[in-house]
């Protein structure tokens, strides 16, 4: 009795199209800002995790285990609603005068993703023969300098594909930011649905965007794999 009438014009032009476009922009913004921060934090945590300084190692371990084993959604809620009581009033006031929804989403995504990135970097480093570190240390470099000049440059090269995958995960995970009112792509698709009742069209549009994003990123990884990591393999 209910036959669904398709109306693709809803998502290809006009107001709702603009909503979706602005959603794409927000998704991209979160993703790019998030990945840059997550990489920096992840690198820091990875170095701490491998250092000889015990408190740093323990902190990094606790950080990794806790944030990797807790749902991202709960972390988002925590940073948005739960951080209020912990922070001083002045900080809260300042945060609230800014686009805190966006900031909370980025913080949560950064921390969550950085924990995974740190582990990726660590396994990259572990795959570098330990003689490299020994050689660097016996040449007189400190631990941090050895990392900086000898180990990390090698490790980062093989860590690029997993890092790009984390970027993709972050972009996909940013959809959870809709729960605290960040108007990213999934949020907008859902808005279009509740305004027009054309959920099918709205979700198809968002799906296409996500697929284009993820398949182009995956393609880049393949290219990197071929050109940089295994230049001789592909004949």
């Amino acid at each position: 009795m209910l036959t669904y009438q398709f109306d693709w014009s809803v998502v290809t032009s006009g107001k709702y199209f603009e909503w979706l476009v602005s959603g794409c922009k927000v998704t991209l913004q979160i993703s790019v800002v998030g990945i840059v921060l997550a990489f920096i934090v992840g690198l820091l945590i990875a170095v701490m995790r491998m250092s000889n300084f015990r408190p740093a190692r323990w902190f990094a371990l606790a950080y990794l285990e806790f944030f990797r084993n807790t749902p991202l959604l709960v972390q988002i809620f925590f940073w948005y609603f739960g951080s209020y009581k912990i922070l001083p009033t002045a900080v809260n006031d300042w945060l609230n005068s800014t686009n805190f929804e966006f900031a909370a989403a980025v913080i949560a995504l950064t921390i969550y993703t950085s924990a995974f990135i740190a582990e990726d970097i660590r396994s990259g480093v572990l795959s570098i023969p330990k003689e490299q570190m020994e050689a660097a240390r016996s040449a007189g470099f400190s631990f941090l300098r050895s990392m900086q000049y000898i180990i990390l440059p090698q490790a980062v090269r093989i860590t690029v594909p997993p890092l790009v995958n984390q970027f993709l995960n972050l972009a996909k995970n940013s959809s959870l930011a809709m729960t605290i009112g960040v108007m990213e792509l999934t949020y907008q698709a859902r808005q279009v649905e509740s305004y027009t009742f054309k959920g099918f069209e709205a979700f198809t549009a968002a799906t296409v965007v996500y697929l284009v994003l993820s398949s182009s990123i995956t393609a880049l990884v393949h290219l990197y794999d071929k050109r940089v990591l295994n230049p001789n393999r592909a004949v």
Partner: protein
Amino acid sequence: MRKLITVALALVLVGVLGTAALAAPPADTLAEVKKKGVLVAGVKDSLPPFGYIDEKTRSIVGYDIDFINAIAKKLGVKVELKPVTSASRMPQLQEGNIDIIAATMTKNPERAKQVDFSHTYFFTGQKFITKKGTVRTLKDLAGKKIGTAKGSTSEQNVKKSIPTATVLSFDDYPQAFLALQQGKVAAVTTDEAILAGILAKAPNKAQFEIPNLQISDEPYGLGMRKGDKNFVDFVNKTILQMEKSGEAKKIFEKWFGPNTQFHLKRNFKITADK
């Protein structure tokens, strides 16, 4: 290149699935409900006093639920309550997951194209809740962040009446109110009765107020599937009878009356829509 093909084929796949006819929920809900012996209602579960979880019994209670109970009793069937949000209630109904919506749903023409409404069983207007003394007129909210719930008429109304405001939509009103408490939004907007319910439960209610700024009338109706005439007639007959017998008034007094924290006056009667 292969990725491009991948995407293209994925689109085709989506298209194919998309053209599959959507499932048909029961055409005659009244008969269906009687047959299975249970009325499945979509209700709010964290919106006192319309529908919320009672801390002691851990079950859903409220104004909306009492109406559903009365209808089910008349039908001689059991009740199953399903929590819905403002955004999920209409798809849920159309997909047949629930038989009726009793979830503070405002009747408006756009929605009436998708569902059939009962006569108005609750009447209120959309207002704001703000920190005391911060808002006198609508202008005070220009350019501010205003919280509300996804997929609600409140969201659409406030966008119309204060176009410069940023509307933040949460999954539910209390969450929006929490954002207000924490200073993340300047106001929360929705129907007065809901605002009153939230405010009454708020731990620091003295800091907040509901300024006398009404931006729309909000008549609530029970939502049923489009064209489900038997069921709509039955529900309308039942709630009119409830009005006549005084049961409807009693339910109102139970949840909003002088013995509650709300002290609302019943400024409406359930009557047949024209």
